[in-house]
């Protein structure tokens, strides 16, 4: 048979078509060379803008925490708790609080949370409280609690100065300690306890403001009935920020604790400023005069938008009839529940809270959320949809271990779904199919918000609560109204990792990406690139795949073509394993190449120990799985919603210095 001319032509065409598409960047690049400098500037500018918006504005508090984390780590390192010998045994925890159920109904809710947390985590909790508000007595109770040498202690830090010594005594014994309800976090309090569980006041004001501004408005007012109270000032500041972002005028209006006088002040102010249409009050003591004012002026829900902090029967009634858009709840239940859980995780698995402050509020009580929770004993089913699973990535074994551990402890039926290989589209289909099962809740990894949007919204429309874990950017940035995202700030991880590596010196940084198309991983590379650029180093992204043998070859060939590449960051075990293989293949040592990686695995830990790998960026996958199940459990059974759009679980850097603590737990919990 002769080679048909047409075939030749066709193959030629095929090659040409291929070349034409692929050549495109070359041509354009050449033409653009003149403008390159301008382009770069623009990009940097745009990126800065986006970053500023993203981090500083939306998650201001998170950014602050990220900065502080290094400091905290130092403190926490001193106070790293002793891990109990048997994670399955019943733990003994003592809770010391400055008030109790017997004299304030608020505390009944806190204690209910503690009891539920104890039950869900297989913990015995003893609650100690003075007969009346008494700082000194409380401090003595702490001392007595330490003397009992429980597995962990939780307490309310009403006075950091007085409590510092007794708490330090507990820390010195290796007893993990958290603060709840009252406190300012380990940094501000100057005591190395793990975290403080309470409301994030700034976020409450900010997120409340966002909700109110969502439908437009001309002027927002923060009605402050306790001028000078720092917590309330933060609320107003957050609200102001939301107003400013939405381009709405803002003013703060001080009232006092006399309801009738305050109502008059409000009326006068409104007469002078008839353009005010968004009002936020700081609690029942501000809301009560506000309702009186509305009544006086004959205003209805059509005239103004009202939101408030905290809750009361009157507020609830007004939420029900639509006058008040929401009440911001600091979720006392979660303060108790979260305190027990954090301690249990720390004592059993060495899982530490990600930030100095763990927000329990703001939780938004709206007309939609006023339904009754299912109750502690209600049977519950969660479907988890992941883009990866334990059968193909060690990292995911830890996530799944977290989720199944939580599900077992909380008596939840957990079904995990994952595609065969990284496949955004197949994952989206799995979400849709999971919704059809009508479980009580769904947890999922948002690898691509655009693709998943419809599927997740179908779940929300069906009344199924959804949280994201491991992959996602939070409901605000993803533009999907799921409850919260539990994970690390990927950009910050890549950026900080890049800074650490660049500090060791080098020529060219390479981001080895084994999951192209994964938005979270793309952010890691982007953060790393930013760090490289700032350090004046070259940067390139190298795409590999999930076949380790082939990936090792690809990295090797790349290295051979680019011998100046000397800084490598890998995106997890999926690219670290081929990377180590590549080093072995090429006979390279830690003197030739600087390497850092995301995530941990036994092999990564071994390489951190031997100095080949500088660090593993730990996002605490166990906490992602455990926390997601716990958050859904709280939402469905107890009506407690996650406080923040992003619930951070990392980044924390595991280096040769703190490796020993982590290494014992690697592969299962870390």
């Amino acid at each position: 048979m002769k080679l048909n001319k047409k075939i030749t032509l066709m193959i030629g065409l095929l090659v040409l078509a291929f070349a034409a598409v692929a050549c495109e960047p070359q041509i354009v690049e050449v033409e653009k060379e003149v403008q390159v400098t301008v382009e770069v500037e623009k990009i940097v500018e745009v990126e800065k803008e986006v970053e500023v918006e993203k981090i500083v504005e939306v998650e201001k508090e998170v950014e602050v925490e990220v900065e502080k984390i290094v400091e905290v780590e130092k403190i926490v390192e001193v106070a790293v708790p002793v891990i109990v010998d048997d994670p399955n045994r019943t733990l003994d925890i003592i809770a010391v609080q400055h008030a109790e159920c017997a004299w304030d109904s608020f505390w009944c809710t806190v204690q209910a949370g503690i009891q539920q947390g104890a039950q869900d985590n297989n913990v015995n909790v003893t609650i100690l409280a003075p007969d009346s508000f008494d700082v000194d007595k409380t401090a003595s109770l702490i001392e007595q609690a330490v003397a009992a040498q429980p597995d962990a202690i939780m307490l309310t830090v009403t006075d950091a100065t007085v409590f510092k010594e007794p708490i330090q005594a507990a820390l010195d014994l290796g007893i993990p300690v958290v603060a709840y309800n009252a406190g300012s976090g380990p940094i501000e309090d100057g005591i190395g306890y793990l975290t403080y569980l309470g409301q994030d006041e700034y976020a409450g004001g900010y997120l409340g403001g966002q909700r109110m501004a969502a439908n437009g408005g001309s002027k927002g007012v923060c009605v402050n009935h306790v001028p000078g109270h720092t917590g309330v000032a933060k609320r107003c500041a957050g609200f102001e920020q939301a107003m400013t972002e939405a381009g709405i005028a803002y003013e703060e209006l001080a009232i006092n604790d006399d309801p009738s006088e305050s109502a008059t002040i409000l009326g006068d102010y409104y007469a002078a400023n008839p353009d005010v249409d968004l009002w936020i009050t700081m609690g029942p003591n501000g809301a009560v005069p506000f309702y009186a004012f509305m009544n006086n002026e004959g205003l209805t829900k059509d005239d103004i938008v009202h939101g408030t902090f905290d809750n009361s029967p009157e507020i609830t009634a007004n939420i029900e009839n639509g006058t008040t858009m929401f009440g911001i709840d600091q979720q006392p239940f979660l303060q108790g529940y979260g305190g027990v859980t954090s301690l249990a995780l720390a004592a059993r698995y060495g899982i530490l809270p990600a930030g100095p402050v763990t927000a329990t509020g703001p939780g938004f009580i709206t007309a939609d959320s006023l339904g009754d929770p299912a109750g502690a004993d209600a049977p519950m089913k969660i479907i988890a949809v992941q883009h990866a699973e334990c059968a193909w990535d060690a990292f995911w074994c830890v996530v799944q271990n977290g989720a199944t551990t939580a599900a077992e402890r909380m008596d939840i039926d957990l079904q995990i779904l994952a595609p065969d290989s990284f496949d955004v589209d197949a994952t989206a289909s799995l979400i849709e199919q999971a919704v059809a099962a009508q479980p009580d809740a769904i947890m999922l990894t948002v690898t691509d918000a655009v693709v998943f949007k419809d599927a997740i919204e179908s779940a929300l429309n069906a009344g199924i609560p959804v949280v994201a874990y491991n992959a996602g950017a939070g409901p605000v940035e993803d533009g999907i109204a799921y409850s919260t995202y539990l994970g690390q700030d990927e950009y910050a991880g890549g950026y900080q990792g890049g800074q650490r590596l660049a500090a060791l010196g080098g020529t060219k940084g390479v981001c080895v990406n084994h999951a192209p198309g994964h938005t979270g991983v793309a952010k890691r590379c982007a953060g790393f690139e930013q760090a490289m650029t700032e350090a004046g180093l070259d940067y390139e992204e190298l795409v590999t795949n999930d076949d380790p043998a082939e990936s090792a070859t690809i990295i090797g060939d790349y290295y051979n073509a680019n011998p100046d590449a000397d800084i490598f960051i890998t995106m997890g075990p999926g690219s670290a394993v081929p990377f180590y293989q590549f080093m072995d293949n090429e006979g390279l040592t830690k003197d030739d190449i600087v390497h850092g990686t995301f995530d941990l695995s036994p092999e990564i830990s071994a390489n951190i120990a031997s100095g080949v790998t500088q660090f593993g960026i730990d996002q605490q996958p166990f906490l992602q799985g455990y926390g997601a199940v716990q958050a859904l459990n709280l939402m469905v059974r107890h009506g407690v919603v996650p406080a923040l759009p992003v619930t951070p679980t990392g980044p924390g850097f595991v280096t040769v210095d703190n490796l020993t603590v982590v290494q014992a737990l690697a592969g299962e919990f870390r």
Partner: protein
Amino acid sequence: MASATSPSNFQKTRARLANYSEVVVLISFILLFIIFSLTADNFLSLLSLTNIVTLAAIKGIFVIGVAMLMISGEFDLSVGSTLAVGAYVFAILMEHGFVLGGTQILPPGLAFLALILALIVSALLGLINGLIVVRSGIPSFIATLGTMLAFRGIARAMGNSELAKTSGNADVVRFTGEAPPLFNVLNGDLNFINDLGTPAGGARMAIIWFVIVVVVAVIVMRFTRYGSWVYATGGNRMAALAQGVRTNRVLIWNFVITGALAGLAGVVQFASRPAIDPARGEGWELIAVAACVIGGIWLQGGYGTIIGAAIGMLLLQMVEQGLILAGVDIQLFQATIGLILIVAVISNTWLSRT
């Protein structure tokens, strides 16, 4: 032996059933439907049923093309890649328009034009398949294995090219603008169905497109000369050629149709999940073959129906949804499909062995 001259009723029934290639898949479908109705919670809910049909419909659109191709005795392993290329063409034109040498030739957002161009490009890829198979005589399995990789390369290159550059995120093209009305036509919600129950169903326009494709294909295969040519080409190519059937033309057209339908499926999918990545559609070629084979189409060609393939695809999707609802680990879905595949083929073979 008496039974030799007067076959039993059982044998008669079997012989009669053998005339309908879709009988095995239909019976399996009904049986599994009943089993899932009894064992899987919420299986009979509107949401679950519409989910099955919608998800099956998107893949079903190109399964019909593959079915026609298999009836004519050929494979197309490149459908998944063609689907990705089609979706990329559509996505890039929608998001970025067409830029050549710095000049904006087409502005972004021309939805209808983008659709037409996506279909043309994917049909052209089908044409390339057809020409290689027909002109070189390479078995279509190998030829399309080659083009599967090559077309995937085109999709990847398109994602990497300057045409598609989005902010730093390699390869993925997302549509960020306001969705044009065409998206609703392509894969919008079918609210008149979805509102029938609580929670609302998940029916989409893909179902309508699937039905249209099936109806047109059934008409073509049953009532037109082209249809009988397709069967003849697959049944006995030499004989068909001898009877004046232009078998080569039939094959090329079938490849073109398959390519175009793959492109359509890609675009329809994009209309509801408006992002495209280079891995899109990987492995779907084998799903399509499995659906066709379960649906009673012979691997060697010449036998089988469009309806069978369509039911085959629905069955696969139903099993996946059903197992998820029954709380079975998804990985066992794979095994179940393998089992169904083998059992279906054995039953089909047994039936046709009269």
